């Protein structure tokens, strides 16, 4: 499961997420998004829908509880084929996604050279799009 969290401010300390379901506790490693200052995400085991979950944000430094709340994944929508969509509950932390499976075998956090440029290709069908969007709300 993938939990996307909106943090209150920049001083919020490093933390991990613990989700309890009944007697079962699962820990989720959380990372701050370096370029989105108030955003962090946590990834870990799946949780079943419908059951009440207790979420706790635990400070990595001294294991104190930074935030706590209960929620259950109350809605699942299946737009086409087994896709989990649900209504996020009011208030933070707000889980907004589901990690469905582990991706590629190779895994690395090393940063490659940013000089790799997007390759431009011919699009398939044309799509009209005046640039920049003329509307000014």
């Amino acid at each position, binding site marked *: 499961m*993938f939990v*996307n969290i*909106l943090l209150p*401010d*920049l001083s919020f300390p490093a933390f991990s997420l613990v989700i309890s379901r009944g007697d079962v506790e699962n820990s989720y490693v959380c*990372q701050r*998004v370096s*370029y*989105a*200052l108030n*955003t*962090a*995400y946590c*990834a870990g085991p799946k949780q079943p829908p419908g059951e009440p979950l207790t979420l706790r944000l635990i400070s990595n430094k001294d294991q104190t509880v930074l935030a706590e709340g209960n929620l259950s994944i109350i809605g699942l929508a299946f*737009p*086409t*084929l*087994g*896709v*989990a*969509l649900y209504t*996020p509950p009011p208030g933070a932390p707000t889980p*907004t*996604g*589901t*990690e*469905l*499976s*582990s*991706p*590629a075998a190779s*895994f*690395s956090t*090393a*940063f*490659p*050279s*940013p*000089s*790799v*440029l*997007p*390759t*431009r*290709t011919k*699009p*398939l*069908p*044309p*799509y*009209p*799009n*005046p*640039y*920049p*969007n*003329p*509307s*000014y*709300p």
Partner: protein
Amino acid sequence: MTPWLDGLTVLVNEGRLTAAILLAVIAGQGLVSFLLRVLFGERLIPAERLALSLTGWTFPLLFLSLLWYFTGLDWLFWILPAVPILFLLSRLRTDLKPALPLTSLFLLLFFFLTLPLRLAYLSQTDLPLYFDSAQHYLIIKTLLLKNQSLLWGWLGASYYHFGFHFLAAFIANAAAAEIARVMLILGQVILLLIPFSVFFLVRQQTDSDMAGGFALLLAAFGWYMPAHAVNWGKYPALMSLGLIPFVLSLASLIHRHAGGFSVTKRRLAYGMLGASILLTILTHSRSAVVLGIILLAWAGVTRLEKDAPRAAPLVFFLAAAATILQAAFLLKQDVLKPLFDPYLFKSAAVTAMVLLLAVFAWKAYPHLTFISVLTVAAMLGGMLLPVTILPPYPNLTLLDRPYVEMALWLPLSLLGGLGLAGVQKALKRRWLWNAAVLLAGAVIVVNASFTHRLYPSECCVLVGRDDAAAIAWLDANLPLDATVGIASSLLRLTSADVAEGEAGADAGIWITPLTGRTTVLLSNASAFDKESTLKEICKLRVGYLFVGERGQPFHSAALLSRPAWYKPLLLMPRTGVYEVIGCD
């Protein structure tokens, strides 16, 4: 009050970076001010020198950033505090006049009051807006690697306007700050300082502080341009719009005063002018066209007034009529019609007031009024004039619509300022003049309160919170050599109304700048449920697909309808990352 509070919050949260950028502004301004004092002495009053140096602050900073990049001397930024320190030491002399006359204080007050207003923009966005910003980010990141061969390779493959990027990289390196935040704050500071150029031009021409101040207000808040350009990520163009009036002002001053210069001073003056022209063009190549247009307008008007002064009014009215006809023609072109959105559809009252003031401007200051009108006419015409000498760009026109849309405030603000000074000359009674100033100022303030947005525009936000988290997840989990297909749409910029190329249409455009993964642009209308599309994707060796939360993303329903071809790796309500598993 909310924007001010939001801006002050940003100021506190981003204090270190904002301080570094303001230090750069103060140092750049101080150096330009010193050079202006050396060259022109008391011919410029302190407020004029302050306004002009605030316009040209980027000029020495650009020099320094180039020096930093090519020498690798990281400590160069930290020589900047020496400028304000030396200035303060020089003020210790007791025989000097007060450093800040009333008009200078007004300019500084305007600066410090509008700084939080501009910074409020950052309170609602983490990344700069639109797809251009992602390119700028990537260039700045490449510059920070300080690998010159990479830069030259890049220049050969895809030319871009570099001035803003060198400056942003220089500051990001010195302040050890996140590139996106540097772009955002630097962009807002540049935006804040651009209008000071108009104060100088009007004040110099009219000797009226009030007219200069009015032009400043008009340039800053009269229309939603140039402020809206930050929503398009047009940072280099925005920076060039500050440098163009600086070059013009400097050229005008040198033209007027160089006759009395010593050889050394003349060399310094022309050296400074030449360098500022080069740096302006480095910042944005279209600046060369705008500078050329204004130079031609100036030369033509000067010649006409000298050789056929009686014909000048007739030619002026012909030019004004041509401008109106061109505008009427352009209004009928779907691609170019948005040009008038800031000036006719959203701020018609301000534009109408400026047109009325232009009559007084023509009466009192025909020379500069004529040049301004000719410049507008030529800029509009420049969008229709094809440039066929550049084979890779068959549909290129001399100027493109976004650039002209961003730049039209400059001649219009000049006309407004000159016009108000013209009103001052026409009105004999002081109270009438005061009433005119109050009325004109009120029109701007009331109009701005309805039309001027200080926060990111919904039109151009491509990255949502889920997108930012998904890209971070993608960075941590996809292989380094992964190729990700991202949504794109076609660009239409010129009067030719043909596609100029493709541009990223959702947050996927940020994947390469933020994670270094290779991305491939695919039409956002791709029919992923068709086998032909899968074959195309497989041919391009696209291993993953990214669906963004905002903008014009791929249709995820089509992806989800083919589980044998596309495997969802990460799904959020709208954002998604898919692995392409249907290739042989």
